């Protein structure tokens, strides 16, 4: 029977149901084993999950800190490049740590003061252009009046027309071009630089760009808005020009 293969068929017929039963029983036994051992695994998994979540949270925090540091580094590199490109001036870099408490004023507070060689009247710039000037100083901090402040006036020169005028701030933080003769042709987008007149700021620092110049009939001067080159809303670090002595011009009293 073995030689003819008949035995294999008989054994096969007998074993097949056993294999089926074995599989059925095995599945059920495994389910029962899982039922009793799973809670232990779940506890382990929950612990692992908590540990991984803590790790993710820590890595996300580190990631944010590194991004923040990257932004600060980029700002500092930009300021450093600006300082290298303008070696005629001496600079002190400072971080912006606050704003004036009053909504009427556009002032910043920086983390460097007289201990770092900063004094009242020194110009403040970034790699983008003119920011303002030092208004008050303590040993370790200083207050900066922005060019957008309503009390700020900067003597300027227009790049193309070479005519001079003034840029004044306002309560809304907008800059306006004033005292430019109506006979001068002022172009939209023309660059505005400090003129150095009056002794408050060094010459040739970028202030912004002319927007919408307007000449009114019978007016001596024309007006325009000026788009500042510095983005004051994201200002984090500035450079103070320490080798510039501002001239305080007092009215002559006879």
């Amino acid at each position, binding site marked *: 029977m073995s030689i003819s293969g008949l035995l294999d068929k008989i054994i096969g017929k007998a074993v097949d149901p056993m294999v089926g039963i074995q599989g059925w029983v095995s599945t059920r036994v495994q389910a029962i084993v899982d039922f009793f051992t799973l809670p232990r695994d779940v506890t382990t998994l929950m612990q692992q999950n908590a540990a991984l979540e803590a790790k993710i949270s820590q890595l996300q925090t580190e990631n944010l800190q590194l991004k923040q540091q990257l932004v600060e580094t980029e700002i500092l590199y930009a300021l450093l490049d600006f300082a290298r490109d303008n070696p005629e001036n001496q600079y002190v870099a400072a971080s912006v740590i606050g704003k004036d*408490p009053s909504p009427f004023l556009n002032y910043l507070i920086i983390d460097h003061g007289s201990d770092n060689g900063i004094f009242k009247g020194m110009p403040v710039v970034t790699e983008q252009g003119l920011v303002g000037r030092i208004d008050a100083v303590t040993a370790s901090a200083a207050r900066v009046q922005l060019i957008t402040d309503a009390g700020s006036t900067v003597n300027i020169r227009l790049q193309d027309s070479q005519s001079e005028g003034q840029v004044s701030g306002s309560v809304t933080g907008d800059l306006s071009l004033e005292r430019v003769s109506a006979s001068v042709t002022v172009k939209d987008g023309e660059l505005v630089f400090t003129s150095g007149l009056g002794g408050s700021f060094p010459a040739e620092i970028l202030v912004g760009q002319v927007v919408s110049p307007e000449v009114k009939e019978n007016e001596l001067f024309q007006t325009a808005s000026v788009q500042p080159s510095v983005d004051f809303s994201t200002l984090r670090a500035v450079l103070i020009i320490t080798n510039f002595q501002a001239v305080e011009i007092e009215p002559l009293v006879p």
Partner: protein
Amino acid sequence: MSILISFPVVILLMILQTTFFREITLLNGSADLFLVTIASWALLSKDNSSWFWAILAAALCGFVSAIPWYVFVFTFLSIVIMARFVRGKLWQSPLMSIFGITMIGSIILYVLTFIGLRFQGVIYPLRSTMVRVIIPSIFLNLVFAIPSYAIMKDLSVWIFKGEVEQ
């Protein structure tokens, strides 16, 4: 105790005001945390410490801000006077009291600021200043008056409960 606690509170207020609250703007207006806190404390304190709080806050604001110092002194002391006057009259309507004092205090502060800066030679156009700065700032002050009052109430309960126990 309420005098001692004023130092960290006022310093914390200055840090928050110059960093966080100056970033929360409505048009060009922003809330004045000192004003609402002094108003809340003046309504809630059971002793005379609100005078000290007002002078301390005014001194610090006058030192940090480019606004003339006398603006803060006059405003904060006016707020304390108003609060002490109102406290006996409207004690059943604390929200009405804080809103009223915040509103009048804000008007005093911004009108005095406007005048003080004009004395310094800075001329603001009245209409745009009113629309862009003063009215939005008053609105924000009123908004922040409620949480400020709640926080100062907790602080006053903590301070004066401690003093009663002693």
